[in-house]
Structure formats: structure tokens, C-alpha cells
């Protein structure tokens, strides 16, 4: 049975990223969502954002959490609901991989979420 929450979960991931990164100082974000045969890929880009080195390390740490279906199945409705610091970890728990790059004030997160996580 196809998980009927799947699309909603992708939406929540995007919601969380927007809530977290889009602010008055970073007024532009670009989102590309692509569905492949076995995964959804979300490329989230903030073209102009200043991140200090320590914050970048924290960001990478926050998203360096392995996908965790045990927690995802229960807690996914909380993604995108608040701007508190813990939600990026929840995004990471809902993603199989998140690649972060930051060059010339351009931040890009490339998330891959496989369709089957049993």
C-alpha cells in the first residue's frame, strides 16, 4: 500500500526548511522537487544568506541524523509547525540523505527521501 501521507510529508519538509531559513534578511528561496522512480528529491536553495562558521557546523550537525522511520511515523506532523531549533533534526529523520553546500553566500540543501522505508 502506498503511504498516503507521503506527499504531505514532502510538503512538511519543505515547510520546515522555509520556516527555518526564509527571513527578512534572506528574502528569496528556491525549491525544486523531483520525483524519481524510487525517491523524492528536494533541492532547497537560499541564494543569498550569511552564515557564520559555527552556525554552519551546527547546521551540518543538525541534518547529519540518519533517517529514522520509528520516529518519523509518529512525529512527522510536527515538521514545519515551529521555528524552534530541533525541527531540522526531524527533517533529517525523514530524509535518507541531506547534502549541504555553502559557497559564495549561496546555501543549498539536497534532500533525498526514498519512497519505501519499512
Amino acid at each position, binding site marked *: 500500500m502506498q503511504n498516503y501521507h507521503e506527499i504531505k510529508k514532502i510538503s512538511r519538509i519543505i515547510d520546515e526548511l522555509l520556516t527555518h531559513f526564509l527571513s527578512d534578511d534572506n528574502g528569496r528561496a528556491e525549491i525544486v522537487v523531483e520525483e524519481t522512480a524510487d525517491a523524492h528529491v528536494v533541492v532547497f536553495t537560499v541564494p543569498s544568506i550569511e552564515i557564520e562558521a559555527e552556525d554552519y557546523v551546527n547546521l551540518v550537525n543538525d541534518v547529519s541524523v540518519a533517517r529514522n522511520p520509528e520516529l518519523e511515523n509518529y*512525529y512527522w506532523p510536527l515538521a514545519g509547525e515551529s*521555528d524552534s531549533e*530541533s525541527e531540522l533534526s526531524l527533517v533529517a529523520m525523514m530524509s535518507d540523505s541531506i547534502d549541504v553546500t555553502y559557497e559564495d553566500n549561496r546555501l543549498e540543501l539536497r534532500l533525498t527521501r526514498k519512497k519505501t522505508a519499512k
Partner: protein
Amino acid sequence: MINWQQRKWQVAFLTALPTLLILTGLFLQPLDDLLPGMLRILQSQSVLLSDYLAIGGAGATLINAGLCGFICIGFMMLYKIEINGPFIAAVFTVIGFAFFGKNIWNIWPIFIGVFLYSAVRHQSFRNYALVAFFATTLGPLVSFISFGAGLEPRAGIALGMTLGVLVGFIAPPLASAMLRFHDGYNIYNLGFTGGVIGSLFVAVLRSFGLIVEPVSILTGRYDLIMKVLFFTFFLVLIGGGLFVQPNRIRKTLAAHIRIMRTSGRLVTDFTLVGRYNATLLNMGVMGIIAGLFVIALGGEFNGPVIGGILTIVGFAAFGKHPRNCIPVMLGVVIGGALKMWDLGSTPVILAGLFGTTLAPVAGKYGPFWGVVAGFLHTSVVMNVGVLHGGVNLYNNGFSGGFVAAFLVPIIEAVSPVAGAPRSRRKV
């Protein structure tokens, strides 16, 4: 040298408490009274507040608690579930409530129900194990129908088990849905979910003439031995957190400060934020604080109070720390002192311990709002139990859901901190 990255050490840590309880239990009660004591526990109606120490004796109670813990840990081993903050909280919660409501019989129908739900969803039970552990909050529904409703024994057991399976089956989708009600500011989300489920079930039962009422079976007989046992365990946790890797003490203390900076709102896993050493330290510290809180109010270490303390210790791996808990406890004390209840009574002490379900309110919005949350919680928790007749063991989680849902939007509206532009915070 202990390496917390290795699963064997994580398992050793998680099995320490249930092992301690079982071994201690064997010495606290004559062996020929252990089995009868256990049977008294299994056949009790188990609704709030049924202190198993009074019903079955200290030995049988500790063994029941240890076995309930091992059942959960067995599932985690079988399904290769990661030992992280949420599951530490879940195991400690099951162990704690196995002092007053959960037993090695009434948790099984709920597990079976969750298992059936996972089968229907074509998913592994592993993905719903966390809900299954917490959903045992409704174990007393199974016990009450089986042994307290006055039904013919076989019919009662069959109906009790059926309702338990049904509860387990509907718990996973409801638990996720209920998160939206309080937005993660009520840590005991399954308490709120269980309260809703329990209230509906009990309403139907009452309409058929089955009266479900809370009871008050408590004993302070084992106060001293329980204090010695659990304070020792909490000191060992602190010692373990600080000294199993003595070259990392400064890093552990720094990690504990990182833990204390979090709001604690769901989902804040301290084994990720601060790693294992700092998590153990936090658990031990919270155990000491909770124990001293009980003593300061003149309370006894009876079954429900021990359950409250162990639940705090478990959730000290998943959202609770001194900075976000103490204001809520203070609010409950102020509420208890100003209102009509005896400050040293078990219900008020339980409100103070379990009221820390609202810790994220203090963690996110500051101590003032934590005190307000605790103050409100004292009143609400004394009034919601009648809805489910005591079949929902996490009554404070039920209350916490209402308080958080009521309070957080108001705080967001009036607090300058909550309304600050997001651009002022770091990414």
C-alpha cells in the same frame, strides 16, 4: 573503556534498571509470596491510583516493573531499534508505570493491536514500536474490564483483551494527529491521546451501566528502601555520565549545557544534542531533583510517585532538563499552596512530577510562563481524570495537552520573545 557508539554498551545501560529491580525484588518479599503477589497485581483493576506496592508487595512490584522493561527492550532487540532518547523515555515510562497500572499482562493486548495496525499498513512493527510502548497507558482499561467490571471472568478477560487490541490498533494514527493539538509542547503526547481514547471508551461503557471510577490504593510502607534504591541509581547515572570516560568530563559538562539550552519541545533527542554521557548526567540530575522535590513536599515514595520520578528520568533523555522543569514544578507548588489541596498529598506531588510534561513551555518561552503552566496544570489535572475514570494512566499528559493548547497561542500573541522576527535568530 565504554564506547557509547557501540550498541552493546547502550543495551547494558538500558537493561541496568530492570535488572536492578528484579534482583532487588527477589530479596524484598518472601519467595513463597512472590507468585501470589504477582497474581494480585495481574488481577487488580489497575485504574488510577492503584499502587502495586500496596496490592502485590514490594518484591512482586519490582519484578513486574523489571519484566515490563525487559519486554520492551526485547522488542527493541528483536526489531533492531536504535536506543535513542525517545526509546529511553519510553522504556523508563513503562517501567515507572509498572509500579501502578501497567503489568506483564495488560500491556500485551495493546502491543497486539499496534502490531495488527502495522500489518494493515504493510509496515514493520518497528515503525510503531514507540507508540506501542507509550500506548500501554491504557493498560488499566484491559484490567478493569477483565477484573473490575463485575463480568463473568472469561467474558471479562475476552472483552478486556478485545478492547486492548482495539486501543492499540487506533493509537498510532490518533497519536500523530493529536500532536497538532498542542504543537509538541506537551511532551506526554500519548497521555493526551490516551485521555481522548479513554474518555470515549469509558463514556460508552458508562452508557451500558459499567461504572469506571478512580480509586486510591496507596502505601508508604516501602518509603525508605525505595528512596535508598532510587537515589543510589540516580547517583550511579551521574557517576556514569561523568566518569566512564574520565578524559571527557569537560566535554560532557559542555554538552549538558547544550542540552539545557534546548526548549525540550518534541522532538528533542538529547542523545543527539549532547550524546550519551551528558544524557546520563541529565537523567541522574533530574532523578535527584525529582526525588528531592517529593521529600521537600513531605511526600512518600509510593508506587505512583516512583512512577512519576522514573518518567522524569526517562524523559531527561528526551526533552526534560533542570532549566525547563523547575519553573513548572514551582508553578505546581504555588498552585498547590494557594488552592484547596494538601501540598504533600500524592495527587499534588504527582501533578508536580508529571506536570513537567509542560517543560517545553518554560524551555521555549521562559521560566515565568513555565510557572504559569504549572499553576494552571494543578487545577486542570484534578478535573480531567473523571472523564476517563482513571483508565488513562498518563492523566497529567491529558491535562498537559489542554494547558499547552490553551497557553501557547496566548504566549505567542503577547510575548515579545515569541513574536521576534526570525531573522534575528541563527540558522
